[in-house]
């Protein structure tokens, strides 16, 4: 150990800066670096395992029928998940259309207008609570509000349930992006004679666009995999349907039903469906990353 209490006397040899790998502090550093690496690997292990497992089980089962045919009756083989794939896209579409404007505009209010106010605090708090609420409760909400009043299970009810799941994610992630836009940039816009609306719409929102896209994708990915809130809102449908106001099949629900029945063809379809669902989520994430890779801040 170097004694730092004594004045430094330069070492005349050329050895003074040599790194001694076996010194305790270097060994400890090395050990800790290794440890963090190990835990990082452990953290991505589940994801890797899921992807590998789903891909290896599902890939052999991917064929054109999967995308174009209806599911087979229990026990029979063949068929596909065409209606469920379409259904998932429709329900997610409804959820997207509902949650994005509310979430983004809510975040704009939080960051640009209500910042620091009591109401903003409570809105933020509620959003945090909502994001912790189990998804099945979101389904229950939609069941009481939409299904009971309209008297039928429907794609729309499923979309509302998923919108509730998405809303807090969209809102909080967007707000984080908006807050990252430096205050000076807003002042610059005001200083040029822009109104508050012009400042937000022409400067702050464009600058935060990558964050908003990330927020929406994250939320879509999360909602796309949910089965619980759809069980008693969108329900299921063995046939083709694009009607917003009738029950609709979705991949997650279809996977759930097929995974628990004791027929091999159905279980195989569940694996294939899982792979399709995973791919949809992956594609959405990659596309949005690609579109918005130029982060401003």
């Amino acid at each position: 150990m170097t004694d730092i209490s004594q004045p430094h006397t330069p070492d005349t040899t050329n050895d003074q800066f040599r790194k001694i790998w076996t010194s305790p502090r270097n060994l400890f550093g090395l050990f800790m670096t290794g440890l963090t690496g190990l835990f990082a690997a452990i953290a991505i292990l589940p994801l890797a395992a899921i992807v590998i497992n789903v891909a290896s089980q599902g890939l052999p089962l991917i064929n054109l029928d999967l995308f174009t045919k209806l599911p087979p009756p229990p026990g029979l083989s063949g068929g596909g998940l065409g209606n469920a794939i379409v259904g998932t896209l429709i329900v997610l579409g409804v959820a997207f259309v509902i949650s994005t404007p509310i979430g983004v505009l809510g975040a704009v209010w939080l960051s640009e207008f209500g910042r620091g106010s009591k109401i903003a605090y409570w809105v933020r708090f509620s959003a945090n609570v909502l994001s912790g609420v189990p998804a099945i409760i979101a389904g229950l909400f939609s069941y009481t509000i939409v299904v009971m009043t309209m008297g039928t299970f429907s794609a729309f009810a499923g979309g509302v349930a998923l919108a509730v799941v998405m809303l807090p994610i969209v809102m909080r992630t967007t707000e984080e992006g908006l807050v990252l836009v430096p205050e000076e940039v807003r002042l610059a816009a005001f200083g040029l004679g822009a109104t508050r609306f012009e400042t937000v719409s022409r400067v702050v929102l464009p600058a935060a666009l990558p964050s908003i896209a990330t927020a929406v994708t994250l939320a879509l990915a999360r909602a796309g995999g949910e089965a619980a809130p759809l069980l008693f809102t969108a329900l299921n449908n063995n046939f083709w349907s694009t009607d917003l106001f009738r029950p609709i099949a979705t991949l997650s629900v279809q996977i759930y039903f097929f995974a628990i029945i004791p027929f091999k063809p159905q279980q195989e379809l569940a694996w294939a469906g899982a792979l399709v669902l995973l791919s949809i989520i992956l594609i959405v994430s990659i596309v949005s990353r690609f579109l918005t890779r130029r982060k401003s801040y």
Partner: protein
Amino acid sequence: MIMTRNPQPTPKVVLQVQNASIFYGSFRAVRDVTMDIYANEVTALIGPSGCGKSTLLRCFNRMNDLVPGARVEGKITYHGKDLYARDVDPVEVRRRIGMVFQKPNPFPKSIYDNVVFGARVNKYKGDFDELLETSLRQAALWDEVKDKLQESGLSLSGGQQQRLCIARAIATKPDVILMDEPCSALDPISTLKIEELIHELKQNYTIVIVTHNMQQATRVSDRTAFFNAEATEQGNRVGYLVEYDHTSVIFNNPKQKATMDYVSGRFG
């Protein structure tokens, strides 16, 4: 027939400050400032840190409205019109009285979009390309950026960014340009360029500049206002105007001892 003319006519007053005190909540940051700012001149505001130069500057275009609790007592007029009258729209004020900030703050947009931003929000009817070129030329930036107008304003160097901000302010066609320490983040060469630019600009604009650099004040300004801060009974420090005169007077034979001490660097 021939009228006797004043050999040096007093220039037109653009901004007039009468007994203005500026508050942040209950804290009085600046007290009882009275001064006139003249057309087509450069007016420098100097003084120690915290004496309220930025505060006063921000009141000239109502940027202080954006600070919750900020408030002005007394009167600040622009061409005779009370800036703080009830019917005044601060957005309209800022269109005529532009601002350049201490830290360069271009928008995360292309150089082109940065410059024409003000014109866009102000529904400018003329030719945008022409506006772009004249503004960038006036800001002495045209030659450096003319081949990369679509690149992000953030890709420029600090000094170029600040000139871009000046171009952006000019393109809004203001009458007055307020500058809060525009060179403090810049190297000597960029600083020199901006000082030359200020000289050019005063033919068309009225400029108020805050600076901590005495040489800069002597180089660019026609008049200089020296502010100081003093402790109040409450233990706060309140800024006030010590002396305001032609720059040569302030730096060579000021009337107040405090001014003399400050400009000669003997400041305690």
